[in-house]
């Protein structure tokens, strides 16, 4: 049986062959510890990291590659911001559609005296920027929100929120772009984003264990590092460097992974984000239409409109639990998807799908156009057993 991979929102699969080739070449031909030793291979390894910063900067219109901090994923990037910037007495604003990589650090901080406002979203998961504006206070330090929901694909009005936050002095705007980096255009200047968290293994087509955090120059003074240790710089001092990107990059990095990410970034830049978006929009629209036409028992959550969501569709089918449905899809059709709560309990409360969850199909660049019809027909046939 052919496998149809519809779990790209968890991690993209397959990867461009160049990703594996670059990683292989790195380990064979470079393999040294970047930025530690000063010999040729160590410099070459450092160059790989520099290229990753540069390619990420180009993709998101970041002017200085050195303001791109390399991390192991977006979870680390978000934790650096939230745990490093917020202290008891500070106020932070977020939305009810966040992933646990935002919500859990915030709940922890709230238990330690940080004031937290969670702004409710519509049943489709959409934030009204006016609601967020009303929640801002004198002591608001950070506004953090996802660019698109990992549950429904709902695209949030990030640029509008960015405009609102920019008018408030001293408030940092942090965007979780785990679901959108590589899939939707992101411009940190146009969108007034101060802090951008991305993960390498989803729509940037890199390997797992890679991610990044853009920190607008100057804000590093307001954000303490999560970890401290060796950076290859200022070795004569026993205090952590205070400059970008070293302040947040202690320990030997995943240079092997970033070699792979460089290939993923080249792949995305080569196709252009606009082309990737168009392709994923078409497959999402085709799936939604066929599901609506063929399966009245299915309920789709979120906008159910390919223009307003990423290539992620969450649904339930009357009378079938998400986990039973997923097992059936895999056994009968070779469809790999994700059932359940998708690491975002408050998003499911917003959608009215807590605690049973949904089935999530998420398409990627490598899905064939025909996968949309096969997936929709598999849902239609679910009730036939």
């Amino acid at each position, binding site marked *: 049986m052919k496998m149809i991979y519809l779990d790209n929102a968890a991690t993209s699969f397959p990867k461009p062959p160049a990703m594996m080739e670059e990683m292989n070449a790195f380990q064979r031909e470079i393999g040294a510890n*970047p*930025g*530690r*030793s*000063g*010999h040729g291979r160590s*410099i070459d390894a*450092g*160059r790989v*990291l*520099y290229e990753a*910063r540069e390619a990420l900067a180009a993709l998101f219109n970041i002017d200085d*590659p*050195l303001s791109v901090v390399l991390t192991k994923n977006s979870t680390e990037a978000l934790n650096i911001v939230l745990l490093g910037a917020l202290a008891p007495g500070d106020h932070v604003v977020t939305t009810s559609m966040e992933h646990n990589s935002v919500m859990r650090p915030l709940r922890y901080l709230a238990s330690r005296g940080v004031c937290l406002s969670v702004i409710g979203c519509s049943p489709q998961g959409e934030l009204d920027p006016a609601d967020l504006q009303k929640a801002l206070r004198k002591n608001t330090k950070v506004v953090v929100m996802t660019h698109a929901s990992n549950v429904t694909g709902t695209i949030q009005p990030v640029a509008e929120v960015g405009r609102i936050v920019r008018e408030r002095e001293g408030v940092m705007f942090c965007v979780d772009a785990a679901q959108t980096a590589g899939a939707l255009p992101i411009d940190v200047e146009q969108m007034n984003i101060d802090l951008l968290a991305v993960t390498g293994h989803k729509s940037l087509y890199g390997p797992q264990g890679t991610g990044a955090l853009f920190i607008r120059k100057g804000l590093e003074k307001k954000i303490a590092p999560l970890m401290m240790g060796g*950076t*290859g*710089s*200022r*070795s*004569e001092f026993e205090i952590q*460097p205070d*400059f970008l*990107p*070293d302040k947040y990059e202690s320990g030997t990095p995943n240079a092997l992974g970033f070699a792979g990410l460089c290939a993923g970034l080249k792949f995305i830049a080569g196709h252009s984000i606009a082309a990737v978006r168009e392709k994923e929009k078409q497959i999402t629209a085709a799936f939604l239409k066929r599901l609506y036409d063929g399966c009245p028992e299915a309920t789709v959550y979120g906008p159910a409109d390919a223009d307003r969501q990423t290539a992620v569709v969450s649904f339930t089918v009357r009378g079938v639990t998400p986990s039973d449905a997923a097992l059936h899809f895999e056994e009968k059709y070779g469809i790999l998807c994700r059932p359940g709560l998708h690491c975002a309990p408050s998003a499911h409360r917003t959608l009215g799908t807590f605690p049973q969850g949904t089935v999530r199909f998420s398409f990627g660049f490598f899905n064939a156009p025909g996968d949309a019809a096969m997936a929709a027909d598999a849902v239609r046939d679910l009730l036939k057993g």
Partner: protein
Amino acid sequence: MAASETPAVILFESVSHALHAEKLLKAAGVKCKLIPVPRHLSSDCGVCLRIDGADRDRAAGVLTDRLDYFDIALL
């Protein structure tokens, strides 16, 4: 040896900065090479950029305002 042929080195805060500077200098046509920091200049384990002493001012011009910190020393 004429003064203009004395090599100079540019010291940075970190390898990331040195790589960034290398890129900027090469784009501006200033010849440079990454080498380990000479022991007598710093006990740091990092790298620095070696340039021709005659290019000192040009290099400084390229890097000023684009890097927060760098230092040029004659060897």
